[in-house]
């Protein structure tokens, strides 16, 4: 019976009808391939545009303008009583060393106002620079040495070409006199562009030329550490319990629906929850990675649970049966077989969750991690900020020099992300088993 109906509809090989159908199918397959390829190309183009624009803007944040200026480490200024006491060395007026050096460098500058702008061409950070040099080697006192001082942010911008000298003076942040001083130094070969190590080793600062990203990197690290330590075990245990042990009933259905809903809750709501719970009830320290990590752990939990459940569900039942059939208890089955086998999938989900947490700003604003923090956090209870918040803070600052810092910080954030993902791929490879 089926045969007859088939023959009725069956067109012969090479018949006109078959050929036209075939051509149509081939056309549609080709069109689909082109559309798919187009989608990938568009995505790649956007990614490339993003990366190129950030990298081209942020690249200059990694170098820094310095002026080679002869500094006289005068005994009278630093340590008049020749005590070599560290406290004396620390509190000495290194600013006057810089000012004396600049006066000597530009003896023609006399008026108070001009002197003030002259002193402004080097960064306020140069004081710290000199202090550090002297503290490390008190033998410098009494010597005269050429020191490469950090330039001010305006000079740095001018050197990097962000400030155009052809613009009328009134519209230009760097005035004609400063341009002349710069040129004079430049002609002497005293202007150099060096790698900005300070950007990677120091914390935030109000002065863009000495502001660094390290404080935020360490803050992000501690915050994610707390997030991982809290969310990973809880998430994995929840997933195992729900998948392997929990009875199927209304109650577990409600839990499942709620977990899925929680994954979709806006992150700022988790911030409010963190504020209410960890700061107002538990009185944990404000602005601390501990609180940030706990808050982000709340946010990451649903993602980890959902990914882990999917990974656990993908383990074939035959493995569970094999273990149970050998007299393994359900717990042994779960922990000896199901969990190790689902680990690659669980790790992937965890890294996705942590990457989300790494880029999260909104909930951290609620718990005070948006504060201006100069010190590098030494632990999870120290005040800290995180990378995305640092990006936000710098993008919000009026100084021109913070533009490149913002892009530089974004590059560091992306680097952090790539590092995390690479770690995930490595761990996954390690845990992966060939079936």
């Amino acid at each position, binding site marked *: 019976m089926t045969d007859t109906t088939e023959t009725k509809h069956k067109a012969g090989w090479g018949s006109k009808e078959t050929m036209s159908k075939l051509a149509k199918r081939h056309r549609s397959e080709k069109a689909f391939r082109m559309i798919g390829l187009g989608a990938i190309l568009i995505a790649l183009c956007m990614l490339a545009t993003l990366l190129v624009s950030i990298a081209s803007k942020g690249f200059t944040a990694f170098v820094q303008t310095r002026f080679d200026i002869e500094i006289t480490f005068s005994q009278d200024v630093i340590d008049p009583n020749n005590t070599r006491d560290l406290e004396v060395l620390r509190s000495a007026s290194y600013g006057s060393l810089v000012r004396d050096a600049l006066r000597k460098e530009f003896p023609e500058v006399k008026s108070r106002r001009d002197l003030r702008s002259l002193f402004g061409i080097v960064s306020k950070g140069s004081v710290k620079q000199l202090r550090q040099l002297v503290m490390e080697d008190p033998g410098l006192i009494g010597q005269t040495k050429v020191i490469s001082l950090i330039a001010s942010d305006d000079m740095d911008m001018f050197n990097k070409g962000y400030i155009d000298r052809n613009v009328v003076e009134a519209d230009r942040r760097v005035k004609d006199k400063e341009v002349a001083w710069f040129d004079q130094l430049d002609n002497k070969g005293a202007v150099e562009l060096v790698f900005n190590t300070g950007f990677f080793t120091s914390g935030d600062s109000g002065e863009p030329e000495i502001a660094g990203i390290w404080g935020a990197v360490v803050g992000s690290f501690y915050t994610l550490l707390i997030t991982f330590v809290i969310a990973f075990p809880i998430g994995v245990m929840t997933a195992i319990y729900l998948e392997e042990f929990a009875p199927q009933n209304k109650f577990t259905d409600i839990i499942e629906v709620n977990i899925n809903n929680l994954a979709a809750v806006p992150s700022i709501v988790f911030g409010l929850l963190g504020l209410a719970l960890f700061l107002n009830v538990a009185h944990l320290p404000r602005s601390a990675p501990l609180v940030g990590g706990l808050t982000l752990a709340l946010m990451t939990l649903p993602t980890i649970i959902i990914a882990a459940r999917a990974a656990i569900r993908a383990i074939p039942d035959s493995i569970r*049966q*094999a273990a149970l059939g050998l007299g393994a208890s359900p717990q042994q089955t779960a922990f000896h077989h199901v969990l190790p086998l689902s680990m690659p999938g669980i790790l992937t989900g965890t890294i996705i969750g942590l990457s989300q947490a790494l880029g999260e700003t909104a909930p951290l604003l609620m718990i005070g991690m948006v504060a201006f923090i100069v010190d590098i956090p030494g632990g999870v209870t120290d005040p800290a900020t995180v990378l995305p918040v640092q990006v936000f803070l710098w993008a919000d600052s009026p100084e021109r020099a913070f533009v490149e810092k913002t892009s530089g910080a974004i590059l560091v954030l992306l680097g952090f992300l790539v590092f995390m993902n690479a770690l995930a791929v490595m761990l996954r490879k390690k845990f992966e088993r060939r079936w």
Partner: protein
Amino acid sequence: MLAEVQTPETTKENAIIKASDVSVFYNDKQALNGVSLDIIENQITSLIGPSGCGKSTFLRCLNRMNDTVPGGRVEGKITLDGHDIYASSVDEVLLRARVGMVFQKPNPFPKSIYDNVAYGPRIHGLAKNKDDLDDIVLTSLEKAGLLKEVRDRLNATGTGLSGGQQQRLCIARALAVQPDIILMDEPCSALDPIATAKVEELIEELRENYTIIIVTHSMQQAARISQKTAFFHLGEIVEVGDTEQLFTSPSDERTQGYITGRFG
């Protein structure tokens, strides 16, 4: 009259498992309806019947694997050496160590061959030290007839073996726990004829030391290897008896119909 003849015979042959009036429900669906069967020690008992007749379900009652199915419920009484295995004092995990199981699809763990076999002894603490464990693993592989083929690659993964080797590895894994009874759920259905022949040969050898209950779709297999055969149909046992007798002169016409290939 027939019953009178059989009764002394069964006692003489020592029934290790006695199932009486066993019914199994999955939620509201009844899968098994009042099945009674005695399993004789050191014999091979085949369970045959068309798909969905409840033979696998019955098999899985004997080591309480049905407990792991949500909504599954077992009624009736099954005794092992006179002890009710569904009594609340019985731990199903310990029971499964005494009643091993081999599944339809070879399911070695994605670990090394050695670890596959060593897993059971490890969790039950059967080996006192490393040498003891090595001994158990090698003996079990030897009993399963696999040692010759894998001796030089015990650390290779178990899933890299051929289908037949994998199934024999699963048998070795079950033997390593030192069970008294081995349940086999269509152990050869995923294997080619040559691998099947090897596994069958192995099952016949194992009969000396173990009681084996095997579910099979192949009537030839049942006829070849088993001493007792039970024919299941629609969740009930239609006929049970000596294999030779059941295949040559079945007393029920449904059995007759099934073994001659009229249905099933």
